[in-house]
């Protein structure tokens, strides 16, 4: 029991420690691709610490919701990140919630973020919130469709069971899984406000989505919001890694060697996917907002096609 708690606690601390590092890594690689030196890897930690020390400036008409919002968002994202297998499956918390609950947690975090954007009543917050809701209303059906596909393949919506199934030799190369992977990557890009959908580094009013909603936050509130954005990126990469590249994951055994392998494999996967994300973002330009429905519609179609193909292969 105590061991279970320690492992779960270790995972929660691990994601907390790694999330800013991952963000820093992606920024660094992107800067190197643009032949800039870029900020050091630990810059996000420095930013967070500095923001924590600064005082909070609130608008006059900010309500209580605006003040508790950052904590709610951070808590929901952190809990969601604790549920995804990173270096070991079947941790203590993972049995209390499945993939659908995870989506719901992230959805509620997003809901509060959008409410916070509307709360102060500035026009940017409103634009950001409405755009974010448009993206969400397209991304979530796609996500649910992907979950259906994966759940039909693995026979469960429980992440631990799914990761164990994907790690077992009985899963073959399936087209449905390939479609699910492509669709999940598209959804992950949209959910994390990465480049073709939204630019995380922009401060140009017309193109902002995520940044427009968090414009009014300052001090420790802003630190928490930034932190949860990093956590969410880490969460989606972990989700992709545990579903489609579960190699090295400590499945049942919990001895120190397999745990060490699990942690090392996890770090390797983060490194590779962070590099690929930076490469992808460097080679592609941002889309117009009006093209976002097409992009996410394609993700939905891929999920649908995956489910369809699954029924076909079942009929053999």
């Amino acid at each position, binding site marked *: 029991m105590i061991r279970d708690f320690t492992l779960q606690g270790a995972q929660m601390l691990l994601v907390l420690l790694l999330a800013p590092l991952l963000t820093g890594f992606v920024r660094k690689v992107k800067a190197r691709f643009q032949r800039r030196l870029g900020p050091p890897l630990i810059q996000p930690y420095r930013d967070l610490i500095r923001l924590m020390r600064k005082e909070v400036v609130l608008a006059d008409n900010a309500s209580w919701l605006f003040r508790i919002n950052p904590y709610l968002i951070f808590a929901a994202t952190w809990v969601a990140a604790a549920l995804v297998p990173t270096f070991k499956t079947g941790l203590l918390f993972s049995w209390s919630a499945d993939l659908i609950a995870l989506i719901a947690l992230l959805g509620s975090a997003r809901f509060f973020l959008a409410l916070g954007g509307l709360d102060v009543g500035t026009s940017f917050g409103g634009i950001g919130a409405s755009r974010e809701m448009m993206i969400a209303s397209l991304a979530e059906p796609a996500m649910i469709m992907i979950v259906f596909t994966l759940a039909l393949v693995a026979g469960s919506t429980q992440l631990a069971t799914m990761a164990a199934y994907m790690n077992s030799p009985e899963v073959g*190369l399936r087209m449905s899984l*390939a479609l699910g992977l492509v669709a999940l990557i598209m959804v992950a890009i949209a959910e994390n406000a990465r480049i073709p959908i939204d630019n995380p580094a922009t401060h140009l009013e017309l193109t902002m989505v995520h940044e427009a909603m968090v414009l009014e936050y300052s001090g420790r509130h802003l630190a928490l919001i930034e932190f949860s954005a990093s956590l969410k990126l880490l969460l989606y990469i972990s989700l992709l890694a545990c579903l489609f590249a579960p190699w090295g994951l400590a499945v049942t055994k919990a001895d120190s060697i397999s745990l060490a392998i699990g942690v090392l494999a996890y770090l390797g996967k983060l490194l590779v996917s962070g590099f690929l994300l930076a490469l992808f973002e460097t080679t592609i330009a941002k889309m117009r907002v009006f093209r976002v429905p097409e992009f996410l519609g394609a993700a939905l179609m891929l999920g649908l096609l995956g489910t369809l193909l699954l029924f076909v292969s079942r009929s053999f």
Partner: protein
Amino acid sequence: MRGLVFDIAHVLAGTLVLVSFLELYQDRLYALLNVFALHALVLALSVAWQAYIQNAPHLYITASIALVFKAIIIPVSLHRIIVLFGIHREIETVGGVGLTMLAGIGLVALSMVVMLRVTAGDDPLTREDLAFALSVVLLGLLMMVTRRNAVSQVIGFMSIENGLVLAATGAKGMPLVVEISVAFSILVAFIVVGIFLFRIRERFDTVDLRALDRFRGEQG
């Protein structure tokens, strides 16, 4: 081993369907050409894999025909036609990408239902291959129906042919003669269509096929 053989054939054929959807999604001509080259490349891989598992060396020739003609020569020459006409910046009005893709999903479902009924009791590899091939053919047709630009209609036509080749290789036993004659007829068709493109362009100053309707007296 049997499982892996089946899986790779399944993934390659499925990727071909996926690339057909990518073609439907693209609305710029250059991007469409690149995706078409990818389509032909995947077809070549798929045919080569079939050649390997069926132990049929003549299918390697089919694969190399697909690779050389459809993945290299035709895209490059279409590229030059686009440059020549100066239509590379034209964005096609497709009538809603989302709607087209939905129709595409419907067609895939249709071909699955039809093919799996018709071929019941056959080798699963063949059945799936045929179902995928029919989807590629139908998606190519959909592409021709929804596009107005003559160049993208040509690409839709070539995709249909790709689907036919996939079906033929999956069905075991298409003679090489047939394959070569099909490949050459496609090439001839391509040349004829190319000449037609120039004629249409000369006559109407555009490759938008709506211009033809006016001369048939359909729009008053």
